[in-house]
């Protein structure tokens, strides 16, 4: 299905009807009747519970549905008292509890029913009933939760630093990178990403910092003996410095050209060293400074504003 609508709230609902399961919104508290119940009793059950129909259940299995309409048909035919099973509809459309809501929506629409019984896929037992009202209520509830989570997120993002009282606030993170251990690549970036998320920074800022750090970390691993990452977070700016003791870069200008690489074959075979690392970093950062001395090592300094500035990566 194509989501063509540009209205984010509408798209969210479309997303939700695929995401939510029938089991999440259905009514579990059911009024049911056994097939042996008398039609005369049914009248009272429907009236007292103010419902227009009810599932007929035997040994937890759904055997039919009986509604006000069936009751009327029975009355016009004389209304001679008999068991419900002689009047009920036996051909019943059902849903499984683990189906997405969108199936419920389309089945209700297709057959024009007011309600559909919900079965457990494994045991076939009747576990609930779903109506259009349940679906609307479920969607509204979910939207409210989403909205609430966004609010909490905003709170954390805007208040972590505001709640701290000082003339200047800085949060620092330091990491050590073991050179040549390619199998550990990405650990520093991963740890930093988790930490920045906890600070409540904007997801886009976290994403850009993680990408830039990952690339810098891989560079140290591939080209140097060891290195360190120092991250300095201030309310409006993240500064990252990656310093290594390695072979250094002969021509820094050339190194930041997309596609330029000096990586050995074994590194390229792993899908690294395609000359995309430094350009990726540059695309993610506002400030970019690369200084290197051949034989001594390289220092990369970048700055990423925390203001959620619209600058896309790569």
């Amino acid at each position, binding site marked *: 299905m194509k989501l063509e609508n540009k209205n984010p709230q509408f798209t969210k609902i479309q997303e939700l009807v695929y995401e939510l399961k029938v089991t999440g919104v259905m009514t579990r508290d059911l009024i049911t009747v056994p097939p042996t119940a008398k039609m005369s009793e049914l009248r009272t059950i429907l009236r007292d519970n103010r419902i227009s129909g009810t599932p007929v259940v035997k040994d937890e299995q759904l055997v039919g549905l009986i509604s006000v309409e069936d009751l009327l048909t029975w009355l016009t035919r004389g209304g001679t008292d008999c068991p419900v099973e002689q009047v009920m509809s036996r051909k019943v459309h059902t849903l499984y509890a683990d189906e997405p809501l969108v199936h419920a929506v389309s089945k209700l629409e297709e057959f024009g029913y007011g309600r559909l019984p919900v079965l457990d896929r494994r045991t076939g037992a009747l576990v609930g009933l779903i109506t259009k009202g349940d679906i609307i209520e479920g969607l509204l509830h979910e939207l409210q939760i989403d909205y609430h989570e966004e609010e909490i997120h905003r709170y954390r993002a805007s208040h972590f630093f505001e709640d701290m009282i000082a003339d200047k606030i800085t949060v620092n993170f330091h990491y050590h990178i073991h050179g040549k251990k390619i199998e550990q690549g990405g650990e520093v970036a991963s740890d930093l990403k988790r930490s920045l998320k906890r600070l409540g920074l904007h997801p886009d800022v976290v994403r850009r910092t993680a990408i830039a750090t990952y690339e810098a970390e891989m560079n140290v691993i591939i080209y140097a003996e060891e290195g360190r990452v120092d991250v300095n977070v201030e309310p409006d700016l993240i500064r990252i410095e990656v310093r290594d003791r390695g072979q250094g870069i002969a021509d820094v200008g050339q190194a930041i050209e997309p596609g330029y690489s000096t990586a050995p074959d074994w590194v390229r075979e792993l899908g690294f060293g*395609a000359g*995309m690392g430094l350009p990726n970093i540059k695309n993610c950062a506002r400030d970019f400074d690369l200084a290197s001395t051949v034989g001594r090592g390289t220092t990369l300094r970048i700055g990423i504003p925390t203001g959620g500035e619209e600058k896309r*990566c790569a």
Partner: protein
Amino acid sequence: MRLKEVAKKLELEVRSGAGRLEAEVRGGYASDLMSDVIANAEEGCLWVTLQSHVNIVAVAAMKELAGIILVNGREPQEETVAKGDEKNVPILVSRLPAFELIGRLHRLGIPGQGADAEGS
């Protein structure tokens, strides 16, 4: 669609991260270059690749991808499987080559990223 259903429909075999197959697959991305995936793959998407070494797990974990599918019958290395289980990253394998597998993913309704950009 959930990863579990995708795996069933396309006969993918699970090699790691079996506990995370309930995750919703939001899209797909195909690439064998780590920097490309790091820069461009989006959260919740399935990554189709030929790479089977341990670093794919770190990349998928950092980008919070739904999982990795190795194509052409490639098997993940032993340490890749171990890391996948440790980080809870599903790795699945397919006997199909990438082009065919991606075609089938599309037919299941899994969109490629950037489909919106075409104005479709």
